[in-house]
């Protein structure tokens, strides 16, 4: 049994008021996610990520194909007791406080009052909403709502969690919190299925990804396999470089850009290996400040995939 299973899942929306034109938001998606996996659904905006999640939660109904969660069809209400969902840019009820919202959802999930009393404060602490928990949600910022959204997705200690753009609206500290949360869920054996249009989010947490573009699955597999060939070179910042050393470096590098006194950015070809680079620079008398791989953005990757596979959206807005 897969944690999540879709088969030729397809969704057409009708556009236009008078003359309805079909618009294919998702085209024959077939996907399996195993239990305990952290699975990333990647793609640029409008790729069909949110549609996929809404189909899995049955917020929209498929035009054709089918989907299962924990071996049950998505229409099964009982299975929702075992899942959690964070919508994109979540919004809740203005008049409730975070505690009341979680309590309300806890009731709907059939949690006992003892469970609710024990879990809710702990969860809110975990997502970093300690002090504001008694504030009505209308006074929350976007980032705080995102945190409440995470908390409500986890209140039933779900077996499968769906997170739609969980990092959006968060500052770097918040992003790290989400990353840690996801890894913590993974350690407990929870399946995490999340969508993002930012590659680094996926890199930091995912075991496997699927990439969508124009409503179609472009590729899926381990992120490293998909993107390894995507490294275009290395960018190294070095310090304490004398003029002679700089001349020597210029010979081997693709480019050498001075930043400040004695500090340079060096671009190296993709064939370079970081450990060797470190060693070479040290022996040349320069100290390395940072080494970063220069890679395709997800957009570059999509563009190339589209060019290679000839996938293009059949009907566009």
């Amino acid at each position, binding site marked *: 049994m897969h944690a999540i299973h879709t088969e030729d899942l397809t969704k057409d929306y009708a556009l236009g008021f008078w003359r309805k034109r079909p618009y294919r938001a998702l085209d024959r998606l077939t996907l399996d996610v195993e239990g305990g996996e952290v699975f990333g659904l990647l793609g640029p905006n409008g790729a069909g990520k949110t549609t996929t999640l809404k189909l899995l939660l049955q917020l929209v109904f498929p035009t054709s194909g089918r989907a299962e969660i924990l071996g049950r069809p998505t229409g099964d209400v009982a299975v929702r007791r075992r899942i959690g969902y964070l919508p994109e840019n979540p919004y809740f*009820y203005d*008049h409730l406080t975070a505690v009341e919202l979680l309590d309300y959802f806890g009731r709907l999930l059939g949690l006992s009052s003892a469970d609710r009393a024990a879990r809710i404060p702990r969860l809110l602490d975990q997502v970093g909403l300690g002090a504001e928990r008694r504030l009505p949600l209308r006074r929350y910022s976007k980032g705080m709502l995102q945190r409440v959204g995470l908390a409500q997705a986890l209140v039933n200690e779900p077996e499968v969690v*769906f997170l739609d753009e969980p990092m959006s609206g968060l500052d770097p500290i918040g992003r790290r919190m989400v990353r840690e949360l996801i890894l913590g869920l993974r350690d407990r054996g929870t399946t995490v299925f999340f969508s993002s249009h930012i590659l680094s989010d996926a890199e930091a947490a995912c075991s496997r990804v699927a990439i969508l573009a124009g409503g179609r699955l472009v590729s899926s597999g381990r992120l490293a396999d998909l993107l390894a060939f995507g490294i275009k070179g290395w960018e190294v910042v070095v310090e304490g470089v004398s003029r002679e050393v700089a001349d020597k470096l210029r010979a081997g590098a693709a480019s050498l850009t001075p930043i400040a006194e004695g500090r340079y950015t060096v671009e190296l070809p993709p064939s370079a290996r970081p450990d060797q680079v470190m060693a070479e620079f040290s022996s040349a008398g320069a100290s390395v400040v940072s080494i970063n791989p220069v890679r395709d953005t997800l957009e570059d990757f999509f563009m190339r995939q589209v060019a290679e596979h000839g996938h293009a959206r059949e009907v566009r807005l």
Partner: protein
Amino acid sequence: MTAGRIGAVAVSVFRESVRDRVFYNLLLFAVVLVGASVLVGQMTAGQDIKIIKDLGLAATSLFGLFVAVFIGVGLVWKELERRSVYSLLAKPLRRTELVLGKYLGLALTLAVNVAVMAAVLYLVLAWMWWTSPENLRAAWEAPALDPALLVAFLLIYFQLLLVTAVALFFSTFSSPMLSAALTFGLYVIGHFNADLKHFESIVESKPIVWMLRGLYYLLPNLAPFDVAGEVVHGQAVAGGYVLMTIGYASVYIAFLLAAGAHIFARRDFK
């Protein structure tokens, strides 16, 4: 368990109306009624008790109508507009249960509203009775603290329940503005409904007469819920009549909720 979930939704609707200061209308109601009773007492002789009853029942109906329509059309729509429905429906809650819970929550709000208004009216009437001389009391058609008023309040409540169901029904597939307009439209038609049937006295064409007759039976008929005219004059309202009217409301509400839930259960929440 289902009842538990519906109940949780209903309680949340009730809590929202409390927090959104819906019950402030009760304050206005009390001020209007007390103010009117003072004024009327100065201006008319003898009939003031009837006028206060008229006013109290009419205001209960009108204030309740505004609560029923304006909250009713937003019940489901607000969830969609603010996207709170996404996280809500990811919980083990059927869409039908959501619709029913929303409806029951507003029904509870209206029940509290009407009950408090009835209490306020009785208080004002008690005060008027206390301050009226014996010879004035003798001229009243109906006693000041007439329990028959409760029948009028009961039917007003069921009328409001029906209006709420209409509002909720429309809001499962259209915008709140349109839903409110349609609901008010049906409310007005519902009161002049009897005219539809009697158009045959001025319309010649048979098909039109039959069509109007059909509309009379199909559209919600709200006029029978207004028994204020009988009650304030101390005329009895038959128990069977009240039961049949309540039965009519209940079946009509069941129809509207079933149809509304059915539409809502099939919608895509884009």
